[in-house]
């Protein structure tokens, strides 16, 4: 579960308290976790707009695609996200949860970071590029700004695409209808494509005939898009935590990824085993397994991308007193198996 910040604007102090109480209850039913913040940048701004003038004032100073307008019935404003409330009342619980889930779904893929055409004309301020600044400043991984964002668009609109890294020769064909993708070099996806920002990836929409032709030319057997999503997050994260996640958030692996398609799976074995039996934050996972924090974060993000994690539970770590001789034995068996495979 991801965690997003929401900041109320234009509400009275008592309304703040009530909204906070509503959100506390709503969090149990929301797909993601939402927290109030009273200052600083937020993922979404809940704006009390009782008039067009008030709305314009707020939307000029804040990233418009992050505004959730809370308006009186009959007030028509140009807001992407809007919920109604009666005079002197807060928005209904049901409407608020529905809207936050819808916004959360887009935030998860970073859609709101893409400036809309109307945003382009907005004056400087904490606009949609705020997300980009946050990603760089806090060093978070925003999937919507990388290969994952394109894959997600492709799955949403159902249009096949050919993706090429601008500085590489490898191409990836995505066929959303069958949930498959095809890689020109099936031995390895180049890091130039996996870690490139979205604007460094050349994206070409394909018709069905063109797709069939390109697949036959490529001669690649194809892989599930979910595998590409996992690999893209694993190698594209480069040690940056998935935006919206917290370093101190305890996580647990709900299920293991498909190891047969996980390159260099041996590097993650200990991490996966620990995460499946224990609930802990990324730094603890790294300390307990001997993996680098960067590696744990990369794996964590790949699991977030495929919803393989339980998030936000209580820390729960089983202490294991392993006989050193048995531990050495495990190492010897693993080494023997690797020799066998070679």
């Amino acid at each position, binding site marked *: 579960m991801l965690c997003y910040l929401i900041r109320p604007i234009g509400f009275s102090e008592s309304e703040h308290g009530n909204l906070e109480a509503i959100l506390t209850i709503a969090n149990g039913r929301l797909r993601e976790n939402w927290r109030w913040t009273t200052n600083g940048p937020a993922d979404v701004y809940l704006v009390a707009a009782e008039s067009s003038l008030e709305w314009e004032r707020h939307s000029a100073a804040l990233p418009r695609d992050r505004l959730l307008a809370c308006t009186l019935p009959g007030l028509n404003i140009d807001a992407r996200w809007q919920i109604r409330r009666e005079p002197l009342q807060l928005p209904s619980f049901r409407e608020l949860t529905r809207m936050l889930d819808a916004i959360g779904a887009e935030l998860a893929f970073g859609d709101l970071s893409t400036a809309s055409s109307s945003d382009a004309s907005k004056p400087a301020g904490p606009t949609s590029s705020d997300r980009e600044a946050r990603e760089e400043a806090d060093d978070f991984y925003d999937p919507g700004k990388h290969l994952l964002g394109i894959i997600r668009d492709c799955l949403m609109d159902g249009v096949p695409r050919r993706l090429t890294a601008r500085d590489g020769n490898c191409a990836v064909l995505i066929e959303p209808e069958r949930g498959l993708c095809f890689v020109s070099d099936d031995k390895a996806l180049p890091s130039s494509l996996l870690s490139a920002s979205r604007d460094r990836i050349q994206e070409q929409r394909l018709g069905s005939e063109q797709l069939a032709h390109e697949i036959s030319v490529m001669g690649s057997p194809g892989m599930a898009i979910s595998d590409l999503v996992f690999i893209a997050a694993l190698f594209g994260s480069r040690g940056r935590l998935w935006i919206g996640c917290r370093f101190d958030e305890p996580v647990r692996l*709900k*299920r*293991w990824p*498909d*190891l*047969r398609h996980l390159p260099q*799976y*041996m590097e993650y*074995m*200990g*991490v*996966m*085993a*620990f995460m*499946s*039996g224990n609930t802990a934050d990324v730094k603890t996972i790294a300390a*307990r*397994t001997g993996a680098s924090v960067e590696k744990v974060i990369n794996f964590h993000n790949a699991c977030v991308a495929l919803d393989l994690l339980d998030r936000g539970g209580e820390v729960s770590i089983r202490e*294991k007193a*392993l*006989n050193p*001789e*048995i*531990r*050495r*034995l*495990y190492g*010897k*068996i*693993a*080494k*023997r*198996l*690797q020799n*066998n*495979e070679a």
Partner: protein
Amino acid sequence: MMDADPRQPKLVFTGCVGAGKTTAITAISEVPPIATEAKSSEEYMVARKKNTTVAMDYGMLKLDDGVKLHLYGTPGQRRFDFMCHVLTQGALGLIVLIDNTHPDPLGELDYYLNLNAAFLRKSAAVVGVTHYDVTDSPAIQDYYDCLLERGDPWPVVRVDARDKRDVALLIHTLLAQLEFG
């Protein structure tokens, strides 16, 4: 329950008839495996598999320092279930192979985990799903749901028992569970 002996380490492959226990041991053993087979009597398997293990399968891998890793396969037929308890004595861990084409693969998973419940209280298991290329129902997620209901944390890996890399993957996964899980 006997503790694992690091000088005589062993792994046990268990699971239903036709899940690929003998095949998996054959794929990875460095000595010709010893198999004790008789004519298959399990109804749903007769067409595909003429013979089945009745006592045990045995294979071996020699480690760097000369220590032998013993690989045992239990018989798949229910009437030989007692062999499971014999073979898991002192074993490091358990590899449960489930044939996805079985009429009730999730029931089989439940059965073998129950059969070895006492052993698994102190050890670990990995679930290998075979013949997934023949049918992908139940899906891997269904296995996890089944394990979740039982409260078991074991990983589920889709494997081809003929492929030694897949069998090695199962063992690597089991070792990781034993060390870090």
